[in-house]
């Protein structure tokens, strides 16, 4: 079976600097791929290109073998879930309304929505009675759970997570990491996860993609990155976070 997302020679340049040099990447179905690298290395840019928040200057991006164009992007977006660090919940809508926003927009039946919502509550261990609260009335961890439920509501083929745990305190972060891993395993969810934390990358990733200054430097398992670093940058990046990974 072919890759779910295929980037061919994709590059993106911003006014001041190049954000992503010509890049090729395949995201395999059913796997968790982690993009890692220092700030400004282009990992978020890559994610934003796939969801169509920005368009590439050159190259093509294909989702499920159809090329992403302005004409089909809205339809494709509904097959992709997207969770960002701040959660991105709309403050004027309750948790429930946030989660059901797209399902309602697409005219799903009440029955279908209710069943799926209950499943998601169970999956993310979010108490049912928190659903009528507004985002401002929820804790950071609860907000990210709601954000994840919103992303999963339409049963997306691909889940994009842009540092989803970055804003949480360490205890909440640790427990959510564990839960997320269980959820993705249960759903056999194809995931593209962005983080700058090697420990998190190693924990989630079937495949780790290390980026630096707009290039993919090396791709493989943590073992491969550690034992056969492609260059000095990889060696340094691994070593700098080694203590964290190995203890």
């Amino acid at each position, binding site marked *: 079976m072919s890759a779910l997302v295929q980037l061919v020679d994709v590059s993106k340049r911003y006014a001041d600097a190049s954000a992503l040099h010509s890049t090729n990447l395949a995201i395999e179905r059913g796997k968790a791929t982690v993009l890692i690298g220092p700030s400004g290395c282009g990992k978020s840019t890559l994610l*934003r290109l796939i*969801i*169509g*928040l920005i368009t590439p200057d050159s190259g093509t991006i294909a989702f499920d073998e159809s090329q992403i164009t302005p004409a089909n992007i*809205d*339809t*494709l*977006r*509904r097959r*992709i879930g*997207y969770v*960002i660090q*701040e959660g*991105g*919940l*709309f*403050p*004027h*809508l*309750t948790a429930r309304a946030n989660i059901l*926003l*797209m399902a309602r*927009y697409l005219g799903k039946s009440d029955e279908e929505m209710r069943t799926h919502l209950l499943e998601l509550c169970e999956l993310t261990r979010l108490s049912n009675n928190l659903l009528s609260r*507004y*985002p*401002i*009335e929820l804790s950071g961890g609860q907000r990210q759970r709601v954000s994840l439920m*919103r992303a999963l509501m339409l049963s997306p083929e691909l889940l994009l997570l842009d540092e989803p745990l970055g804003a949480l305190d360490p205890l909440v972060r640790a427990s959510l990491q564990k839960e997320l891993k269980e959820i993705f395993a249960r759903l056999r969810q194809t995931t593209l996860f962005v983080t700058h934390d090697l420990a998190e990358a190693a924990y989630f990733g079937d495949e780790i993609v290390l980026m630096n200054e707009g290039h993919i430097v090396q791709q493989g398992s943590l073992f491969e990155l550690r034992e056969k670093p492609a260059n000095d940058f990889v060696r340094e990046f691994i070593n700098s976070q080694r203590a964290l990974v190995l203890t």
Partner: protein
Amino acid sequence: MKLLPRPRLVGRDRRARRGEPNGFSLTFLILFAAVFSANAQPVIVGSKKFTESYVLGEIAKRTLNDSSIPAEHRQGMGGTIILWQALRGRQIDAYPEYTGTIAQEILKTDRKLSLNEIRDVLAEFDVGATEPLGFNNTYAIVMRRSEAEQLGLHTISDLRNHPELKIGLTHEFLDRQDGWQPLRTRYALPQENVIGIDHALGYAALKNGSIDVKDAYSTDAKIAEYDLVTLEDDLQFFPRYEAVFLYRLLLPAPTITALRKLEGTLNETRMIRLNAEAERTKNYTHAANSFFEGGRASTMTAGETFLHKLKRWTLRHLELAGASLLLSVLVGVPLGIFASRGGTLGQVILGFASVVQTIPSLALLALLVPLPFFGISVRTAIAALFLYGLLPIVRNTASGLQDIPRALRESAIALGLRPIARLWQIYLPMASRSILAGIKTSAVINIGTATLAALIGAGGLGEPILSGLNLNDHVTILEGAIPAALLALLVQWLFDLLDRVLIPKGLRL
């Protein structure tokens, strides 16, 4: 004070340009006249913003009514140019005017024209003039009798020896071609201390000594009331100001005949008495009625109770402010949405709204009045208020939308909502607090500014304020000012309630 160069003989230029026959406008005119006579529209009499003009307007209305011609009187519409434009624009059918003013201000000539010469020129504008009504209301320079006697002043020339005197002049006199500048040149007056002041307020200022010298009309009842003296125009500077009625030549013959019945019926003594009567009773209709034999009341306007008037003013005020606010919202919110996207278009929209806001409201009204669609009408008032209401709404809509964090904006996009749904379901609700604040600001400003609508005869709570100003009568001013202030508070309060209904709960926590 700077002397503006005045165009000479503009009237003649205008005539030259209007010389070519224009089939379209002629057809239009005939059509218009036909529609008017067929519908038996009431004859609209206008008047300028001072007592005598009000009284003459009432007299004309009463005369027409007595000849069984329905007539309405639009009181105190403004100055010469506004009335003249309204007459030419067919918003009014007749108004009282003075021969000197016609020559100087309307025809812009320095030559002394006879009434027949004036008629010839006016005919080319489809305007006719009656014979003189019988009195000459020229400009006069007046001061307190006590001070004049103390200083031994009898003529305008005598002012030359007293440069310390403070002069307060109406704005119209300051700007007129036969006004202050040429008067000062002719008499070589040395006074530098000259301020512009409203006519009625000027009398109060003269009385309490804030100013020493002021311009007046020679038939002004205030001259006797405040014990003032008129300084003799020893160099014969002021032209004659014979009162006449100007009317549209296309009016039906019986209407013109009725108006012309007034020719030669009012001498100076009589006019001064009517003016005094109007100021004493603060009722122009009453004063006008005393002109007619027996002084019986006109059947068309019976005395209105205060509550009835208040209701009429308030309803009209709300109509003006409400209609203009609705327009401002309908136009301002979409403009704000465009402006929020930035770029040249956004800059242009915000720039336009800001520029409109900097135009003084009075000037904006004056700018709209000569335009074909507007003229002296409620439309003009609503249009001006609408333009004023735009900026707060456009700016608040734009900034409310721009203040939505990028992460949320992108979340809405990433979900796959289409642009219209993003706007309606996400962006506008999130900006609702800011948008509503803009609408509230507009509404309160509108309630206040709508009082100016009375200047162009559009009514509302400005009507008592304006006539109170004119009569220097504080009670009448307050009859309009207090309800207007209460209305503004009420609107503010209603919008605070509306906030709770329209701003989503999640944004209010």
